[in-house]
């Protein structure tokens, strides 16, 4: 699904990622953990193709394609989804409108017939029910006046609608109370499948109580310094990031 080799990336000439290697197989869920400033969000944004970051070295292969060579919208249409840490507000544009434009651009790209208003309405209502989102949110401007939890739920709704091959969730748990966290996690778990891979970027272990990863990686100083199974997360929780950082330095 995803093969990251020796990835280096700068922001404003300042190196953030310094040689990341990561292999994500189809159907696998990987958690990327690490202290603040370790480059977790940078990795997520580089994968999605944000302009502010410059890749200086390395390669990323996604489903047999050179990911770094693709525009952000092409990556999206090819099934790469980023759930944003801070979903943006777009005044005057209804959630419905954005979602319909999104799914139809994906369908068009894949040569599938675009959905008409009625078909779309049926589909979106189904998906909204799935992530337990009230329908009124569909008719409101994108994320405007949404609480932190509602914004994150909206991200999960978009993911459910677009059915990506690879989902990258950037600090999806930040700013959520425990109830909201559970609902978001349930949504993610519903979307877990043997065909779909996920990369969870998170600072805290607690998200992993609800979404159990297959693999856990620790990102620090722009590199993955340790990888392991889900038990690594528990160890991190107990011993803190200093523990692995010291070990890596030793």
């Amino acid at each position: 699904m995803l093969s990251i080799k020796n990835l280096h990336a700068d922001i404003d000439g300042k190196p953030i990622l310094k040689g990341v290697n990561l292999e994500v197989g189809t159907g696998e869920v990987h958690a990327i953990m690490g202290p603040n400033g370790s480059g977790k969000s940078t990795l997520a944004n580089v994968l999605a193709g944000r302009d502010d970051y410059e890749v200086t070295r390395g390669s990323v292969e996604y489903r047999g394609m050179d990911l770094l060579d693709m525009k952000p919208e092409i990556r999206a249409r090819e099934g790469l989804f980023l759930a944003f840490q801070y979903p943006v507000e777009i005044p005057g544009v209804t959630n419905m409108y954005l979602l319909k434009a999104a799914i139809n651009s994906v369908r068009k790209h894949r040569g599938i017939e675009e959905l008409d208003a009625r078909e779309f309405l049926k589909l979106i209502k189904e998906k909204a029910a799935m992530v337990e989102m009230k329908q009124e949110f569909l008719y409101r401007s994108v994320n405007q006046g949404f609480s932190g939890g509602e914004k994150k739920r909206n991200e999960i709704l978009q993911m459910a609608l677009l059915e990506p091959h690879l989902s990258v969730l950037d600090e999806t748990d930040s700013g959520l109370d425990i109830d909201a966290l559970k609902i978001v996690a349930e949504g993610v778990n519903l979307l877990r499948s043997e065909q779909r891979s996920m990369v969870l970027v998170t600072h805290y272990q607690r998200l992993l109580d609800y979404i159990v990863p297959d693999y856990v990686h620790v990102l620090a100083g722009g590199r993955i310094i340790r990888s392991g199974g889900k038990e690594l997360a528990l160890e991190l929780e107990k011993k803190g990031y200093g523990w692995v950082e010291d070990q890596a330095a030793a």
Partner: protein
Amino acid sequence: MDNKKLVMSNSEKDLAPMLQRDYAEGFVTDIDSETLPPGLDEDVIRTISEKKNEPEWMLRWRLEAFQRWLKMTPPRWAHLHHPPVDFQGISYYSAPKQKDLLDSLDEVDPKLLETYEKLGIPIDEQKMLAGVKVAVDAVFDSVSVATTFKQTLLDAGVIFFPISEALQEYPELVKQYLGSVVPSSDNFYAALNSAVFSDGSFVYIPKGVRCPMELSTYFRINEMNTGQFERTLIVAEEDSYVSYLEGCTAPMRDENQLHAAVVELVAMKGAEIKYSTVQNWYPGDENGKGGIYNFVTKRGACRGQGAKISWTQVETGSAITWKYPSVLLEGDDTIGEFYSVALTNNYQQADTGTKMIHIGKNSRSTIISKGISAGKGQNAYRGLVKVLKGAENARNYSQCDSLLMGDQCGAHTFPYMEVKNPSAVVEHEATTSRIGEDQLFYCRQRGLSEEDAVSMIVNGFCKEVFKELPMEFAVEAQKLLGISLEGSVG
């Protein structure tokens, strides 16, 4: 932090070309015209009046306005920069040569018909689709060349005539209202217009009549070195209703051309006038060469209790726009509205807004202004809300939002408030935002192209104004901003 900013503005700079559009209306019609030599004096005014076979009082009115104009100077307070206009370098009258009185469209020069066809303006009644009935008055340079559905409208009691013809057929009616809302002494350009206006539309809706179709006037400047000075007068008697739209285009030329119009609206007790403008005058090229100077005075008077006047404007064209469609809320319980989208790209400048003058009790006004600046465009909102002493319980709500694209454009807000009655409630809100990389990236990450994302964001920003336009024109306005249809769901 500074570096971060630099990165943002570099990528934002690429946004402006997306608002760039080819000016499809920029062609010239090759037609024989009768054009007065450049210059303005009493003789020119006498000639115009004579050509129109006007009554004596009309000529006197023009000459008085001219005398006033001579003593006035162009306004300098607006946030606009342009070289002085050479008023003696302009021709004040130009008309395509044709027979004086036309009985039917068959007698209109085919080149003119072709021009309007090319512009997509329906001036052939027969060819109009059922359901989208719009009556059109087509003004070409200084004269009205065709007016549709005149008879159909007359059958309903509605007068929809070129103002020059109305002066022949209904001189008393015109005399009663002309200059009653915008006196010729009002300002420099209004005085000039009063002296030299050559055509425009006259609308009269009798008591209790709901005008059976949308009325519209389509203004076209064609001839070189001419100014267009049209005059529109709409009178809605008690409990009547009319929705009126104007559109404007001009050829692409290197010289600046002057357009100085006056629009007067009169709404009697319980009457409603909805006036919409889609202004698409040639804006000049990407280096700021050429384009129309659009200096316009528009004002409506709510004369009777419960009258309502609503201005909606979408201003995408012109090198310079200077206009403040206003409402005099004279009667009790009257309503004034102003909805505006003004787009300035390249070197375009706009200083536009409104004046809401509350005189009657319980009068209410709403102002929604959306300014979009891109390239080196400068966009100013200027608005006055004035509540007079007797305007018990007057209410105003103003909202002025500016959207910036890139780091070389400007947005300015000049709200003025004068409140003389303590029971009045006047609210003003203003926001300035930038189309952010964040918004764009978010949309692209969901699969939208960059162009579609910009369109969607701009469209969302203008939504409150677009929804005030009649359906067909809303579509037109969206196309003008180069944006796809928003709101087809949801």
